[in-house]
């Protein structure tokens, strides 16, 4: 086996050249920027769904024994199932339906035309557990003295939630969001590699692999890493700013 073959290992300059031209068209599929925007919008939408359901559910399960008893068994069974294991199932169920079709927009092209429901489901599933479990943990570790102080100062249940339990568990929730976003990003790449996808950075990897365009493939991998790191730093930056108190408390 000879590694000195651009179809196996491209030259560094070739990869670099791809990276410095992010707007250049690649194999008639669009540019890196376009593929990243497609992947990122799938992730953002799925991740938002996961946060929208995971945080409130986590707050309830963490606080009320009834919800804990209701949801814990289901969640413990679903949790060990890797999100990637759900990809074939999601493809079978949702086929290639997109968010645009779901809302009846069929003949205009928009970013929603690229967001397949199956992918959304898988990202949601990947993001949900870290968000949900961290929220539960955050709520359960709110110090009792804060809750009692608030009650003694006249707080009722819903104000207690809004003004004490939520802010007190916010740092832990943000950790969950950060982990969840990371997993969502990983999962989307896997989902895009499967048949039925038409765009996205994962799709580009498989397509360039098929055409033995290794420079595009490796530049894509570098970009996946960079975008993932950027997302993670973004959430970390946000959480450091909103919970200075927690860092200083310890």
């Amino acid at each position, binding site marked *: 086996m000879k590694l000195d073959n651009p179809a196996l290992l491209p030259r560094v300059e070739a990869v670099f050249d791809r990276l410095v031209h992010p707007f250049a068209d690649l194999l008639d599929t669009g540019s890196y920027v376009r593929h990243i925007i497609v992947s990122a919008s799938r992730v953002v939408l799925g991740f938002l769904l996961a946060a929208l359901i995971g945080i409130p559910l986590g707050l309830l399960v963490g606080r009320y024994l009834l919800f804990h008893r209701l949801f814990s068994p289901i969640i413990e069974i679903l949790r060990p199932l890797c999100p990637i294991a759900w990809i074939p199932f999601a493809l079978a169920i949702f086929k290639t339906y997109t968010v645009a079709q779901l809302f009846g927009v069929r003949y205009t092209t928009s970013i929603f035309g690229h967001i397949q429901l199956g992918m959304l489901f898988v990202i949601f599933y990947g993001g949900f557990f870290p968000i949900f479990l961290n929220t539960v943990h955050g709520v359960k570790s709110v110090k009792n*003295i804060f809750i*009692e*102080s608030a009650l003694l*100062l*006249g707080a009722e249940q819903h104000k207690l939630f809004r003004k004490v339990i939520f802010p007190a568990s916010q740092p832990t929730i943000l950790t969950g969001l950060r982990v969840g976003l990371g997993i969502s990003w990983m999962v989307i790449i896997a989902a895009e590699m499967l048949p039925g996808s038409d765009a996205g950075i994962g799709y580009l990897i498989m397509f360039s692999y098929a055409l033995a365009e290794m420079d595009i493939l490796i530049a894509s991998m570098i970009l996946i890493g960079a975008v993932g790191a950027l997302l993670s730093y973004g959430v970390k930056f946000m959480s450091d700013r909103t919970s200075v*108190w927690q860092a200083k*408390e310890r």
Partner: protein
Amino acid sequence: MPFLAVNKVKKVYWGERKEEVTALSDLSFTCEQGEFLCIVGPTGCGKTTLLRLIAGLERPNSGDIHIQDTIVDGLNPATTLVFQQYSLFPWRSVIDNVAFSMEIKNINKRERYAQASQFISLVGLSGFEQAFPYELSGGMQQRVAIARALAHDPKLLLLDEPFGALDERTRHRLQEELLSIWQQQAKTVVFVTHTIDEAIFLASRILVMRDRPGRIETEYKINLPRPRKRRSKEFLDFHIKIREEFEKILTTDEKEDE
């Protein structure tokens, strides 16, 4: 009818080995409006439990507690409690901690900040409104906790060894401040401590508690003029009397153990 009446209160806990532990038994006392009542007793005699019952955080197994003729049945706006441990909300600035109870009552920001600033200056912390609890010393944190409790405007202020974790100099200074606040605000105060000196310095009346099960042993009316001198003969006389009482409690305990 007294302002606060505790009638034959009994409180039982379940211990770690599922055994019954009687924390308080047949405990009764009253407190008049405007009084500064101190409760002293050895560690573990149920002082904290007693305050939690009066605050409505817990309910007695038998007996009842009345505040101004109303039976205490759960939390009520007439009472609030300052804990020994630091209890400020760490994600809120000093002013937002003090204004918390007003925020709960939906008082608008301008008014609650104006009122909170007054309470902050009352505890001598003007200029620290925007500071966060982690930036404050222990003594300052307890001052904020007292301001936060006062801002709730309780008729009865309960304090559970609020200065217990502080060094002696800070403790003495806060005791003086608390007294001047009590005189200005005309509150009824029930203050729990295990330090005899603190009780004599503050109280208009002292209840001595004993343990196993917790109950009131004796009471002393402290009629010394304020500000009280810790080294005056009368102060020291009270100190010796209460100390003797303490020792009696502890030795009878040892006899019971034998």
